[in-house]
């Protein structure tokens, strides 16, 4: 019989306001095996933990039950407490009487009654707990950063500066991400390239950082401290080590008609290209979809003119296997497709552009060399209408239900810069709300309205109708003056909602990291663990976790790096000891468990058994590799004979909980 101690936490008034904590400890003190029961204001406080430690020693407790907040919150804390008092940490069970009781029930009697039942269930379980010893596994001292935008760059630099090896996998030919496409940055209006380019160079020159550009993650195996990742390095038909980035080929290539993705298709590039001047690595890439040589076998001009001899038409995709201790996701965002918002005539008029396109138009390296000219006829627009919340805060199913967070600010920036450079331009901004919660943000927005004379109109555009004379008739409501406006504009700029990059979803599946319904990665705790995924060893950096502006992205990138450094600084990790275990006396060797194991943790051996009649029988039995098993329990149900069980969540433990709850 176990000697069990019960500790009921008040959590200040979080629990005690709705649960009669002394009634709970009193009721539970009469449960079989319970030798000590108490309640305390904050069990997780030092004093609370000391109470537990003292009781373990004083009463020789063999198991403890803490009635408190969710085990997801403080299970680890209380396991440490137990261990400090010499009790095996896996002899601790938590009854969740806060998130799953006091916070959801209003009536004290009901909540107290439920808390007691939850406590009894935990006691029933702890009776069947057995001390478990966690095995240790070594940590591979190398991190992988997926995505080479500003988030990935910052994370990689911070990890590398701490002395650990970092690999960046970037799917496009260069790192830099969305920030490299931006012109100025709010609220300080410094030039994006001027602050990003030095960081890109730092990455390129850092001896601890390796960039896999034009590469994607193909498969991920393993677990925290020991991930095995397969990286597909796509054929770029140019030998990266030889190419000097002189750019001659990108000028001579006869295939001139390729939409330039860096300028969002607003101008053309060649089939062999370097995305932009500051690209890292600065090497050319051949676009196999357009290259005549690769498509038809004819041409070969770039090979002829390349003095370095870097062109290699026979290059194939390469698969690289690498081990990592930690993985950082920094896959970023994209503006959404506007197919569901054709009332704004995006696909019907070239003069209706997204904000990111506007960003390129105003950028000196953009399609108009920084001149504000409208795409249709290259003329200077005199009236520009900005439409906010295009696809954001949309619950109709056409767009995204969330606020994209950055649009209010960049629209203010666009409006302000337009007015500053071209004072003869009328600028209208249609908004639902202007959201400016950030340092110097509201001041920035007010400057646009007050100093630059941008017309901010509370209301929404209902329709943009291109007219035969090239104007855009913008029909909108002005909610303050309660009228419908019709503005003849030269250009319309849509503050398009942002969404996580499409590569994030399959990546999340590979990483077994969870996502929310919008395909943003979920954090382990929304407040306290914002840069960690619930999956151990996976960290989140930048907009893959939620919409963010640059300062926020950079701080989160640094935070993710700090977490990675904390992990890589350890030599070994303690594995989860709650793993499957096969009772070989009962195992049939039927292979059902092996078939369902996602980790390949189960193997079979032929083993000799001495039978009751003294004969020896050879039987095939399952053996679990405890270092590989992650403890999901799929095998335990696949096993028809009940030979397979899960430590810490055994059949008998779960049934004991069921019994206690149903009593």
């Amino acid at each position: 019989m176990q000697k069990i101690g019960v500790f009921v936490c008040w959590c200040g008034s979080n629990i005690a306001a709705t649960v009669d904590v002394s009634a709970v400890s009193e009721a539970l003190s009469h449960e079989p095996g319970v030798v000590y029961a108490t309640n305390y204001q904050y069990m997780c406080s030092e004093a609370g933990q000391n109470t537990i430690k003292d009781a373990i020693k004083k009463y020789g407790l063999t198991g403890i039950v803490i009635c408190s907040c969710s085990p997801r919150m403080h299970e680890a804390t209380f396991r440490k407490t137990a261990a400090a008092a010499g009790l095996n940490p896996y002899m601790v069970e938590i009854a969740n009487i806060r998130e799953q009781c006091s916070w959801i029930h209003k009536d004290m009697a009901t909540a107290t009654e439920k808390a007691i039942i939850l406590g009894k269930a935990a006691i029933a379980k702890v009776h069947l707990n057995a001390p478990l010893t966690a095995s240790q596994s070594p940590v591979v001292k190398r991190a992988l950063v997926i995505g080479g935008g500003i988030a990935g760059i910052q994370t990689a630099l911070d990890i590398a500066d701490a002395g650990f090896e970092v690999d960046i996998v970037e799917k496009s030919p260069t790192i830099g991400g969305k920030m490299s496409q931006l012109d100025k940055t709010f609220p300080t209006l410094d030039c994006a390239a001027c602050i990003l380019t030095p960081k890109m160079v730092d990455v390129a020159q850092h001896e601890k950082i390796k960039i896999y550009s034009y590469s994607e993650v193909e498969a991920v195996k393993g677990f925290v401290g020991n991930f095995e990742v397969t990286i597909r390095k796509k054929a770029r038909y140019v030998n990266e080590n030889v190419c000097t980035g002189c750019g001659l080929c990108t000028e001579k290539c006869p295939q001139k008609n390729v939409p330039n993705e860096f300028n969002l298709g607003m101008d053309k590039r060649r089939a062999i290209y370097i995305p932009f001047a500051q690209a890292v690595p600065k090497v050319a890439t051949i676009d196999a979809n357009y290259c005549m040589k690769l498509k038809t076998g004819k041409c070969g001009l770039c090979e002829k003119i390349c003095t370095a001899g870097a062109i290699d038409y026979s290059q194939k995709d390469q698969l690289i296997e690498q081990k990592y201790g930690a993985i950082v996701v920094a896959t970023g965002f994209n503006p959404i497709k506007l197919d569901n918002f054709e009332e704004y005539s995006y696909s019907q008029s070239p003069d209706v552009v997204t904000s990111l396109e506007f960003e390129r138009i105003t950028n000196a390296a953009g399609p108009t060399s920084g001149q504000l000219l409208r795409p249709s006829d290259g003329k200077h627009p005199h009236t520009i209408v900005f439409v906010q919340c295009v696809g954001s805060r949309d619950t109709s199913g056409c767009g995204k239900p969330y606020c994209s967070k950055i649009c209010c600010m960049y629209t203010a920036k666009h409006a302000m810069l337009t007015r500053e450079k071209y004072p003869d331009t009328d600028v209208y901004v249609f908004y639902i709300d202007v959201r400016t919660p950030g340092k110097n943000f509201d001041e920035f927005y007010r400057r646009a309205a007050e100093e630059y004379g941008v017309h901010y109109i509370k209301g929404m555009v209902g329709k943009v109708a291109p007219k035969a004379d090239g104007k855009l008739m913008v029909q909108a409501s002005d909610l303050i003056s309660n009228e419908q406006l019709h503005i003849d504009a030269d250009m319309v700029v849509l503050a398009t909602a942002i969404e996580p990059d499409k590569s994030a979803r399959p990546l999340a599946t590979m990483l077994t990291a969870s996502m929310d319904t919008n395909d943003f990665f979920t954090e382990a705790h929304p407040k306290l663990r914002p840069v960690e995924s619930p999956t151990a060893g996976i960290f989140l950096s930048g907009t893959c976790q939620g919409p963010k502006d640059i300062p926020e992205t950079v701080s989160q990138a640094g935070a993710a790096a700090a977490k990675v450094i904390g992990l890589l600084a350890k030599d070994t990790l303690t594995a989860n000891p709650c793993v499957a275990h096969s009772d070989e006396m009962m195992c049939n060797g039927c292979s059902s468990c092996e078939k369902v194991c996602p980790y390949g943790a189960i193997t079979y051996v032929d083993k000799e058994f001495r039978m009751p009649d003294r004969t020896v029988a050879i039987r095939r039995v399952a053996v679990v590799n405890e270092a590989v098993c992650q403890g999901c329990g799929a095998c335990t149900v696949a096993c028809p004979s009940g030979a397979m069980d899960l430590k810490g969540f055994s059949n008998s433990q779960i049934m004991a909980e069921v019994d206690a709850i149903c009593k």
Partner: protein
Amino acid sequence: MDNKEKQKERILRVSGVNVLKCMKCGKCSGTCPSYDEMDYHPHQFVYMVEKGEIEPLLKSKSIYKCLSCFACVERCPRGVEPAKIVEAIRLEVIRKQGENHLKPNQIPQLLDEDLPQQAIVSAFRKYSK
């Protein structure tokens, strides 16, 4: 529940619209083709029903100007369906005895030889009970 609340409740039920979903962006009014002919506009219908200020709407000429073209329904980012509120308000009026907006004896003078039946039955359905 007093009469005013009952009326609001009835309009919400008949329309099936959840006015609380509205985020007051005004896109419905930005989109409405009959806007200029209306005294109260689509976004006001939604907001005034939310506030329970229904009386002015019942008297509004807007309820006979709505074209039921579903542009507001189509473009509303919150799925509010303002047209259904307008319809419910109109029904609230014309369902009362003697409140038909279009009476059978008015019809002959409105007809011309090309007017399709569709126009007559639609108008009749919209304006009369």
